[in-house]
C-alpha cells in the first residue's frame, strides 16, 4: 500500500475514520519510511502550534478589551466564596432539560459553585489570563491552563510550572482527558477535550488529596481520581503516546 501524502497528513492530524486509520496504521508498521513521513507532519504541526501558543497567555491590550466589550462591561455578581471544595459540573452532552425540581436545583447549585471557583481562580491568575471561563454550562480552560493542556507534556515539565499536568488518557467516548494541578490556588482538576476546547468536568481542592495514587500523577484528590476512573478507557498514556496525542492536536 502506498498512501498519498494528503492521506498521511490526515492520519497525522487524526482526521481519518476508524477503518482508514487502521489501514494506515498497518501500512506504517510495515514501512518505516511512511512512519517517518507521518512523524514529520506531526513535528511540523507541533512546531507551528507551539510557536503561536504563547500569544494566548500574553496580556491583552486594554484598547482591545474595550473594543471587544462593545458596551460598558457588566461586572459579574460578586459572590464571596473563597474556595469550592468538590464540584461536579454538567457537561454539554449531559445537559438535560431542567424539568425536574432536582435537576434545576442541582444545576443552580453547580452554577453558583462554578462562580465561586471562578472567582477563586481568577484571584490567583493575572488579570488578563483567566484560567477558566463558563460557557454554555461547561467550564472551559483558557489562558495559561489551556496552553498547558494543549502543549505541555507530563514527561517534560518544569518542577515549578504554573500548571502541572498529571495523567493523560483516552476516555471511553474517544476524547482525550488530562488531569492538572494549578501551582497557585491549590486546585486540581480534570480536563477533557470537546469541540476543540478543554472542558473541566471536575475540580477539587488539592489539599484534600489523599496522597499519590498513581506514580505519574501529581497528588490527586479522590474526587478527581473518581472522575478519571469513571472515564478512562484502558491505561493512561505513556510519554511517547502522550507526545503523539499532543502532536495530533488531541483529536
Amino acid at each position, binding site marked *: 500500500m502506498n498512501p498519498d501524502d494528503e492521506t498521511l497528513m*490526515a492520519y497525522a492530524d487524526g482526521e481519518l475514520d476508524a477503518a482508514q486509520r487502521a489501514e494506515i496504521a498497518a501500512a506504517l508498521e510495515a514501512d518505516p519510511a511512511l512512519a517517518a513521513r507521518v512523524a514529520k*507532519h506531526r513535528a511540523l504541526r507541533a512546531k507551528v502550534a507551539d510557536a*503561536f501558543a504563547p500569544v494566548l497567555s500574553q496580556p*491583552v491590550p486594554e484598547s482591545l478589551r474595550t473594543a471587544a466589550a462593545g458596551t460598558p*462591561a457588566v461586572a459579574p455578581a460578586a459572590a464571596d466564596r473563597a474556595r469550592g471544595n468538590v464540584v461536579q459540573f454538567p457537561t454539554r452532552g449531559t445537559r438535560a432539560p431542567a424539568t425536574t425540581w432536582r435537576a434545576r436545583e442541582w444545576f443552580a447549585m453547580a452554577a453558583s459553585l462554578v462562580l465561586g471557583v471562578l472567582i477563586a481562580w481568577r484571584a490567583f491568575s493575572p488579570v488578563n489570563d*483567566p484560567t477558566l471561563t463558563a460557557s454554555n454550562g461547561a467550564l472551559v480552560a483558557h489562558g495559561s491552563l489551556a496552553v498547558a493542556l494543549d502543549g505541555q507534556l507530563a514527561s517534560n515539565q518544569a518542577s515549578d510550572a504554573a500548571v502541572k499536568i498529571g495523567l493523560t488518557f483516552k476516555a471511553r467516548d474517544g476524547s482525550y482527558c488530562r488531569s492538572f494541578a494549578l501551582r497557585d490556588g491549590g486546585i486540581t482538576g480534570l480536563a477533557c477535550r470537546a469541540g476543540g476546547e478543554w472542558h473541566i468536568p471536575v475540580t477539587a481542592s488539592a489539599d484534600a488529596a489523599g496522597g499519590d495514587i498513581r506514580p505519574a500523577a501529581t497528588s490527586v484528590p479522590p474526587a478527581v481520581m473518581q472522575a478519571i476512573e469513571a472515564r478512562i478507557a484502558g491505561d493512561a498514556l505513556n510519554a511517547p503516546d502522550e507526545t503523539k496525542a499532543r502532536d495530533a492536536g488531541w483529536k
Partner: protein
Amino acid sequence: MSSAPEEISGKMVELLPRLRRFARSLSRNQHDADDLVQSAVERAWRHLDQLKPGANLGSWMFGIMKNAWIDDRRARSRRGEVALPDDSGEHPAVTPMDANTSLWSVSEAMDKLPEEQRLAVALVLVEGLSYKEASELLEIPMGTLTSRLARGRTALAAALGDAS
C-alpha cells in the same frame, strides 16, 4: 434564547486571546495582529444582527477576522503597498516573550505562504480546527482545504528546514 448584548460582550472579551493568536498567525507582527483583531471586533459589533441565533460566536468571529484580513490585504495592494521586506536583521516586533525565536521563524515562513494556504494552516495547525470546521469557515470543500493545507505544510517544512 437570543444572547443579550452583555452576554455577547463577555464572550467576546473571553475570545480575545484566541482571536489574537489567530490574527498573529495571519500577520507579520503583534502590532498588525492587534489592529486586525480591533477591526474584526468593531465589525462584529456593527453587524451583530447578522449573528444567527444559536450560532457559535467563536466561529462567527473567526469568519469575520478572515474577511477583515483579506479585505485589508486587498486594500493594501490597491494602494500599491507591498509587504515591507524584513531587512532589519533583528525583528523589531519580537518581544522578550518570543525568546525562543520560534514564533519569529514560523511567522516569517507563514508570511511567505499564499493567502489561501496561510488561512488553512492558521485554522488547522495554529487554532486546532478540524478539517470540517476549517472548510466550513473558509467556505470551501474539504478536499480543497486538504490540498491547500498539504501544500502549505510542504512550503513551511521547506522554509523551516524540514521542521524537526
